[in-house]
């Protein structure tokens, strides 16, 4: 693949399958190339337009509006930091005890780490099983589909479906009480931190599993045999060959899980019985009260926090390579 000196843009994307951007027909005549390149713009235009109107512009609007003023009726253009002051109201004064915003972020980050660690271990284990223990491609595809199909069904339904199992009179409590293990039904199974974490793991493991599986399927099997021949134990092969070569998948999966948990207000709402705070929920509530600039300031802070965590995570994963 030749590198054409186009624009000053970054090096070609290295994420997942996009590792190679197929380059143009170098052999074609210049006029033809110019024509097909015009074709490329035309072909990419609809998607570019959608992202411009419904992703880039909205983000710009959020940033701009976070500096606006508002009252109960309307929002007015301005350049004030009132909304950011509102987000962190009393946070410094009340230290060392946490203000609402800090407490909310702490709670969301706690879920983030718990869910990230669990989905990583679970997703990695399942992907490893599918990639290295299942022998036929057909079986690999079938079993991978079994893991992915729930991802294509409704998240809210998948949350609700825990009620008959975890509820006060749910199946698990019936079994626990029936077997005499506990005297009274366990209350913390549903509408609790536990329920939220469980539901997140239930919903998000696929986001970890698929990228890791994708990385593992690309590992050259002869590398593993070479390691074995050189006397590496199973654990050594796993730690020194499989994990480093699955790094891309692990990073992509981690980014998915972290951003999905950080911005969540639905899972925490439904599984927490609307009692647990989350940053997403704060934004949701403020929007419903038409406090748009305040919600926008919260969204900007959330975005910075999320990017910070992703950055830390990818650094953390990178360190392995340096050791």
């Amino acid at each position, binding site marked *: 693949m030749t590198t054409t000196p186009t624009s000053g843009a970054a090096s070609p994307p290295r994420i997942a399958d996009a590792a190679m951007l197929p380059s143009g027909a170098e052999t074609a005549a210049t006029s033809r190339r110019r024509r097909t390149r015009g074709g490329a713009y035309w072909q990419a235009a609809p998607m570019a337009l959608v*992202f411009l109107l419904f992703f880039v512009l909205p983000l710009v609007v959020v940033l701009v509006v976070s500096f606006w003023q508002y009252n109960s009726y309307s929002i007015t253009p301005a350049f004030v930091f009132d909304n950011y002051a509102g987000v962190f109201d009393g946070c410094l004064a009340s230290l060392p005890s946490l203000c609402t915003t800090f407490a909310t972020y702490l709670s969301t980050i706690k879920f983030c780490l718990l869910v990230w660690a669990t989905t990583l271990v679970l997703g990695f284990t399942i992907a490893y099983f599918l990639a290295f223990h299942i022998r036929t491609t057909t079986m690999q595809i079938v079993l991978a589909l079994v*893991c992915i199909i729930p991802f294509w069904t409704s998240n809210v339904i998948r949350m609700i479906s825990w009620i008959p199992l975890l509820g006060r009179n749910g199946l698990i409590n019936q079994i626990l009480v029936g077997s005499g293990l506990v005297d009274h039904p366990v209350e913390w199974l549903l509408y609790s931190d536990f329920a939220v974490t469980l539901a997140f793991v239930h919903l998000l493991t696929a986001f970890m599993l698929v990228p890791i599986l994708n990385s593992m399927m690309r590992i050259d099997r002869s590398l593993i045999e070479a390691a074995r021949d050189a006397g590496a134990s199973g654990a050594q092969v796993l730690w020194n060959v499989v994990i480093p070569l699955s790094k891309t998948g692990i990073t992509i999966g981690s980014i998915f899980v972290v951003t999905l948990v950080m911005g969540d207000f639905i899972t925490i709402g439904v599984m927490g019985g609307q009692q647990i705070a989350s940053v997403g929920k704060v934004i*949701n509530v403020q929007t419903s009260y038409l406090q748009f600039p305040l919600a926008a300031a919260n969204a900007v802070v959330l975005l910075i926090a999320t990017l910070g965590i992703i950055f830390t995570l990818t650094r953390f994963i990178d360190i392995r390579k340096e050791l």
Partner: protein
Amino acid sequence: MTAEKRPRSFYVLAAIFTLFVLFLYGPVITILILSFQGPQGGLTFPMNGFSFHWFAQLFQGAGLVDISIGLWNSLKLGLIVMVLTVVFSVMAGLAFRRRFTGSSLLFYTAIASLIMPSIIVSLGIALEFHIVDDTVMGIADAYEVDWLYDNYQTATGLFTSGLGAHLSWTLPFGLLIMFAVFNRFDKSYEEAARDLGATSWQTIRHVVLPIIAPSVAGVALFGFTLSWDELARSSQAMGAANTLPIQLQALTTTVTTPMIYALGTVTTAISLVVIAVSLTTFFVLQKRRQRRALKG
């Protein structure tokens, strides 16, 4: 297959895998069973008889929100999102086979849209349309365009802001699938077609599209199901319109009968039908392609 003995780790991992599958499907199967509760039955086991009572309640509306509105909205929106996701993704996939200025920018924008917390995108779209509304009203007021001032309400809606919100979520998936497809694509077929005198449209129509057809079914699957279940990005961007997931989420706090399970069963059934149709299409097209390739 060789009768090579499985290592012990295989059985441990197989057990973990089985438990994981049980964990994935167990709860959904539970509500599927409970949606056939008898009329006196509750939200949990035991089953109090077997009936279609809650399904009947569901379709009568039972004095609650009218589910059919959300169902119909979600179906319409899902189909439109599916078609647009397929068309836009295939077109962009074709474009990305050549290097063009801004291709990296577009790619990274798609990735950013994929991993951006949905509440932020949703809020942004809501604000964007809010500003459009204010601007239109401001202009109507300033230039005294009475008919506009009297009739204009909002640009926000199912097929404007709602559609855009869904596309910002489905298109990155579509684009990634197309990347995977075209990275494995053998360009010599196309060159052969061109050498035989095919125009670029003929090459796409008779050579490229038939080869990528199975994956297009995959893009369609993602397009519909992701839209059908979408909630986070819809939350602020739908305006007055309701989609099925929005109504469902509202119902979780108000409904205390197995009717909500019946609704869950119906929603999941529609998802499963779409998944089955798409996967069958994928495998049939794939098989036909392989058969033809062998013959040729």
